[in-house]
Each structure stands twice: as structure tokens, then as C-alpha cells.
């Protein structure tokens, strides 16, 4: 009876290119194309300034804080949620870690405070969503408003200058010629990729976002995973807050304004689907870099910011359209 097993389906040879395995690459292809186009525009419109190593590092430095947040956001969205509070959590962490009292503990104390504040607030988001059964949109919207308010209250609407030497120097510090902030961004991206693609945590994230009921019936603790995802996003905000503070040499409740929109947009144009279960860290990285490059081009060419936002809007739509269009459609016989 076992010989029934030998009937195999007819197989066709397919190139790697048309295979499932290449899908992440194909999905990021459009975005890479956009980036290449932007570089070409930069080379043409600002030949002297665009391609300098100083400018490239400048772009990456600009991208670093928002990039760290976008990585956390990517996990939340893949897990089937959304986090609107990231900008506010960045402000709250920034303010909390720059109070006079906290600064007394030095750079390490400030980092610790920022991370703890972000993580705790993120955990509250997660608990409200997983155990309080609030819709992610509502829970994080409330946190967005509340955390920004708390940040304003703590700082008393004042900008809090930083007097800690190590933090003030952080933004200028370089390692092997690369700014430390960029290295942090690169490190977070690498860790994010590994966690998403190689660990059980990543698998669970995809499962919970892709089909929560299936995940539950497979024995995965969906609620716990949800809490962890929002805590992770909060942790990223805490880290980003310190990076923002280091760049401004100050903490203020207006920092991180509209970061939630940039982070969500970066993840979306990077191929992460809002319905959950699908997305890549590399896509979000490219998304952030594309946005920052656009800003950079506008500054180099002295163009008004209104136009810049129009272009960004167009890019969001364009990138999503490109992702839906699979290159293999090109080769298909009709």
C-alpha cells in the first residue's frame, strides 16, 4: 500500500528568479530602483555636494533614529498590530532621560532611563491590547496623546539641555570613520533581521500576525507575544530617544513629532502589509533611507518642503503599486 506514495506531481524547472525563495528580493526591487533613481537625480542636480562621503553619512545619520523606530514598528505590524505612539514615546523617553535628576547618573543612567521608560510604556500598550482587548489603533492613539502630555508636563514646556559629556559627544563620535549613530542603526537592523528570520520569536510574530487563531491552536501564547511586540517597539523608541537627544544636545517634549507616520510609511513602502503576517526588515531599512534621501535632495537643491511632502506621498503610493506588480507577470504568456 505504501507504494501509493510514489506518484509525484509533474514538476517544471523554474529559475530561482521566479521561485518563492526570491520573493523578498523581488519585493524590495522596486524600492531599490527608487533609491537608485534618487541617487541619479542627486548626482545630476547636485554633482558637487551629493556624492561626498560627508553627505552620505549625513543622510544615514538623519535616518538613524527614525530607522530604529521603524524596525520596531515593522515587528508590530507583521504581528498584526499598529503603534501610533512611537513619536510620543520618543518624546517621553527623551524628556525623562534629560531631567536634571537623571543627568546626575551620567550617560549610562540616561540610556538606562530612556530604555526603561520606552519599554514600560510599550508594555502598557501591549497589555491594553492583549488583555484589555482594545483595538491597537485605539490603545496606541490614547498612548500617543497621553505620553506626549506627560512629556510636556515633566519638562514643563522647557527644552532641557544636556550637560553630560559622553552624550554630547555621541553624535560626533565615529568608529572607523562611521558615525556611532549610524552604527547603532546598522546594529539594530542586523539584530532585527536575525530575530525576524532566524528565531522562534520571529516565527511567532509572523504566525500571530498571519493567523492568530491558528497560532493559538498551535500552542503559541498569542497574548504574551503581543505584549512582547509592543514592548519591543517601546524599547526601540527609548533607544531612538537617546539618539535624538544626542543629536540635539537637549531633550524636549516636541521631539519625535510625527515619527509614527514616517515609521509606518517606511514599513509600508518596504513591503510590510498592514494586515499582518508579512514584511521584511530590509524593506523598512530601504524605506527609511529613501525618505531621508528625498529630504536631503530637497535641502541640497534649496527646494521648498511642501513639494517634498507631495513627493513623499507619491512615493508611498508608487512603492505599494510596484510591490503588487510582480515582475513575473512580465514574462507570462497571455
Amino acid at each position, binding site marked *: 500500500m505504501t507504494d*501509493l506514495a510514489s506518484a509525484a*506531481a509533474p514538476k517544471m524547472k523554474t529559475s530561482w528568479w521566479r*521561485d518563492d525563495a526570491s520573493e523578498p528580493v523581488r519585493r524590495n526591487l522596486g524600492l531599490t530602483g527608487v533609491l537608485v533613481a534618487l541617487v541619479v537625480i542627486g548626482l545630476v542636480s547636485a554633482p558637487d555636494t551629493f556624492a561626498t562621503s560627508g553627505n552620505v553619512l549625513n543622510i544615514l545619520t538623519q535616518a538613524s533614529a527614525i530607522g530604529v523606530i521603524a524596525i520596531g514598528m515593522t515587528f508590530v505590524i507583521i504581528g498584526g498590530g499598529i503603534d501610533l505612539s512611537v513619536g510620543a514615546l520618543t518624546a517621553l523617553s527623551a524628556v525623562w532621560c534629560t531631567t536634571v535628576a537623571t543627568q546626575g547618573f551620567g550617560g549610562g543612567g540616561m540610556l538606562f532611563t530612556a530604555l526603561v521608560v520606552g519599554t514600560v510604556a510599550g508594555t502598557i500598550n501591549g497589555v491594553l491590547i492583549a488583555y484589555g482587548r482594545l483595538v491597537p489603533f485605539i490603545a496606541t492613539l490614547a498612548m500617543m496623546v497621553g505620553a506626549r502630555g506627560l512629556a510636556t508636563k515633566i519638562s514643563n514646556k522647557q527644552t532641557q539641555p544636556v550637560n553630560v559629556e559622553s552624550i554630547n559627544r555621541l553624535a560626533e563620535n565615529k568608529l572607523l570613520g562611521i558615525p556611532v549613530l549610524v552604527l547603532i542603526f546598522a546594529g539594530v537592523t542586523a539584530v532585527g533581521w536575525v530575530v525576524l528570520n532566524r528565531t522562534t520569536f520571529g516565527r511567532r510574530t509572523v504566525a500571530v500576525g*498571519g493567523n492568530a*487563531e*491558528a497560532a493559538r*491552536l498551535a500552542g*503559541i*501564547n498569542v497574548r504574551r507575544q503581543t505584549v512582547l511586540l509592543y514592548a519591543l517597539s517601546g524599547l526601540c523608541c527609548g533607544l531612538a530617544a537617546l539618539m535624538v537627544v544626542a543629536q540635539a544636545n537637549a531633550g524636549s517634549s516636541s521631539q519625535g513629532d510625527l515619527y509614527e507616520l514616517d515609521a509606518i510609511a517606511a514599513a509600508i513602502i518596504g513591503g510590510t502589509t498592514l494586515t499582518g503576517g508579512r514584511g521584511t526588515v530590509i524593506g523598512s531599512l530601504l524605506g527609511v533611507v529613501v525618505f531621508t534621501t528625498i529630504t536631503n535632495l530637497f535641502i541640497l537643491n534649496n527646494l521648498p518642503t511642501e513639494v517634498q511632502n507631495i513627493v513623499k506621498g507619491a512615493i508611498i503610493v508608487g512603492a505599494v503599486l510596484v510591490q503588487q506588480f510582480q515582475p513575473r507577470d512580465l514574462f507570462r504568456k497571455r
Partner: protein
Amino acid sequence: MTDSADTPVDGPPLLTLTEVVKTFPGVRALDGVELTVRQGEVHCLLGQNGAGKSTLIKVLSGAHRPDAGQITWQGRSVSFADPQAAMRAGIATIYQELDLVPDMTVAENILLGHEPRTAGFVRRGAMRAAAHTALTRLGHGEIPLGRPVGRLPAAAQQIVSMARALSREARMLIMDEPSAVLAHDEVSNLFRIIRELRDQGIAVVYISHRLEEIRQICDRVTVLQDGRTTAADLPATTPTAELVGRMTGRTLEHVFPPRPPRAPSGELLRVEGLTRHGEFSDASFTVGPGEIVGIAGLVGSGRSELLETVFGARRPDAGHVLVDGRRLKPGSVAAAVRAGLGLAPEERKSQALLLGEPVQNNIGLASLSRHATAGFVRRGAERAAATEVADRLELRPQDVGRRARTLSGGNQQKVVVGRWLLGGTRLLLLDEPTRGVDVGARAELYQVVRSLAEDGVGVLLVSSEVPEVLGLADRVLVMREGRIVHEARAEEIDEHTVLDLVMAGSLLEGAAQ
């Protein structure tokens, strides 16, 4: 039952397919299919899982475009750009996975996409009337028009699906495994409806893996193997052995593996007075190590709910579940999985599969930590384990890197069951494990379940197919309206007795009040 094969229809062909080819990346799903359907006949499509049946009907219904080949409909060569075009031409389809909108009402679902309207406003009265007419024509005018479809039992949903197809003046009705979700008496009702439609001159294309149904309902049979037609227009009287031979290229000797002579001893699972109000009450039974216990009953008799409650996916109102004499934490799947329980749920798409993920990840989902070191998944080990399971269950294609979405219905089912074969499962709860699985793979699956039992795994099996319960299980529980009404050793009870015990009031009538 009438033997429809006595009156073969020989009208002009309504539909002819020649040399139809459809490829997906990596698979030639259809590789030169020939099919002729005549007016007023019931035409069955047979073939193993992944043979291309669903793909074929998707080509017919305009959901897929063929790469090559010709479709002739009512004498003219056609090419349907989309499902709307096929519907306008008179081809209605009921897909393998029901495609109703659960939150919309019965009437809204039936008229979805072609609601009677005036200046953009739906004429609700006309809509209800049209929906009622369609349901009455199917002999089910009692189904409440205003009820959300998601709250109807499976059989009634099926009727709604058919009513939707009929409300479009179809000349041909395609049904992809409609009986898979139905219980025994509901299947006979379905057959009655199909015969009536046939007598009204409508052609029906019918797909099923239950060979005994072929003889009951079909006029002619076309067999597919690996995307090719291997036999066309066979009479329905063709012996089963020959049909199986044409499908698989081999013969199938026995379906159910023999039971071991020794009665299993000991106790693995004990369920005491388990109750969920409105679903089932006072369920008490045991499962021993190495024992297969089958639960027979109608769809809606509370079997799936009972299974899910044992597994901790639902919280009981009373009673408890003990594994090895220790109480399981109620309502906790994690506790159940830790104790070695595994559940292959009824609804594979909504309850079990990550459709966008590879088969490997789907099979590995319940044993992530077993194939991980310090939180890192050992993908090689996972792949090897998944491949072995795929091998055991005859997954086609066997490649575990394919996305679950691209597998045929029966093969998706194998992935769901396969998840719990990775080891560590001591008590396997199977809810309709062979739904949509072909004869060959079914025999293989039974063999796998029996060999698991021989290794000491306890199995609790729910199935709407009474012969399956009787053939595979050592002991049988019969459920009716949420209560276990009978318990017997499988050898000591026959199909007839089980059906008598089970049939006290059908579900469709239940939906009427």
C-alpha cells in the same frame, strides 16, 4: 435511490475543453485536459489531491486564465476574462472553500453582486423575494433570510451558496467537493437537489473524493491524473477498483489498517462531566495509550466544540480534563500542548494554516522550541523533520518550501495533520482529518494514525463519515445534540446502528426555527 447511470443523456455538448494548460511557478497544474459536459447531466471529476480539479474549475469559472487550449461553451469558443464574465455566460461555481461573507445576511449573500436596485439603492423587498425564490427552489425556504450567514450550520451555508449560484440563471453549476462539509443525511438532501436541477436541464460538474457518491449521483466520470485527462466519459457504473486505478495508476487493496488484537490498557486521558452550555453537556469518557477512540455524530452535535474544549481552546462551564491523572488547567492551550495534546482543527484555513508561509513553517509551528537552540530556529533540522512528515503523508508536491496557499485543498489538510506528527504528541485530537483527502492518501493517513497508536499515542477522532469512525477506531462514542448517547467497541456496532442513533432531528430543520 435512483440509479442515474441507466439514463445517460446524449444531448449536444454544452461545454468542451481541449488541450487546456495552466501553469503556476514550479507546477504544471493542468497539462492538456480534455472534458466534455452535456446538457442535463451530472458529470463527475475524479483525481488525487493536486491532480488539478480545482484549477480546472477555476479556469472554467474565469478565476484563472488558461495558458493554452480551447474552451467551447454552447458551440462558441470563449475565454472568460473574469468570474463575472463566466457568470453572465451561465456558469455558476461553488468553490471548495465556501466564499460567503459571514457577517452579511442570507439574502444579501445570495444576491451579492447583482442586488436588485433603483438608482443605486438596493430594493430590499425585491432582494428578499428573489432570495426566497432561490431557496424555495432548493427546497429550503425555511432558512431565515435575515440571519447572518456565519451563524448558520455548514449544511445551510452550502444551500445558501447554491442559491447564490442559481439566482444567476445558471446553465451549468460547478461544485467543488460540496459534500466534504456535510453530514450523511445532508448529503442525500444535496443529491436530491442536484437531481432536480439536472431534470430542469442544468448541467452539474461534481467533484468529490468519496467514490461511493459517484455511483449515486453521477452520469459520467472524467478522471484527471497529474493535470492530464486519463479517462473521459466513463459510465458511473465503472467498478471502483478501475476508477482508483485510473486515478493513481495503482490498485488499492485495503483501506483501513488491521486493529491490533490486544486491547489497550491503561488510561491517558480522562474527561469528567465536561459541559459547555448550549454546545455539549456532561461528556465523560477515557482514552487509553495506543487507543483510537472515534466520535460519530452530525455536524453541529457538539463534537468539534468538545474536542476544542478538551484541548483548552474553549473554557468549560463544568467538568474537567485529566491527563495521566493530573488536571489540565482549563481554557489553556499552552497547558494542553505541554501535556502532549495536539489538535488538528476542523477549519484548516481559518484555524490552522499560515497561508503565506512555507509548508515547512506551517508543519513546524507547534514544535518551534523543539527545533530551536536558545531561541534560534535550527532550520535544517526543522526542514528535515517537515520533509519526513511530508513523505509519510504523501504531500504533493513534496517540496516543503512552497507556500501553503499554493497547495491543493487535500494537501493543505495533510499539512494540518502533519504538524502534530513531529513527535512529542501523546494524545492526538483529529477533527475531520480526511476532509478533502483522496482515497490513496486517506489510506496512508489511516496507516499513519494506526502506527502512531501502536507507538502508544492515544487518538480521539471526530468524523462525519461513519465508515471512517468504524473502520479506524477501536472504540466508538456516538454524540447527539451535545450528549454522548452510546459507547461501544467498534467491532460490536455497525453503520446502520450508528446512523439510527445519530439521526434524531436534522440540522437544517434546526436552522428553521
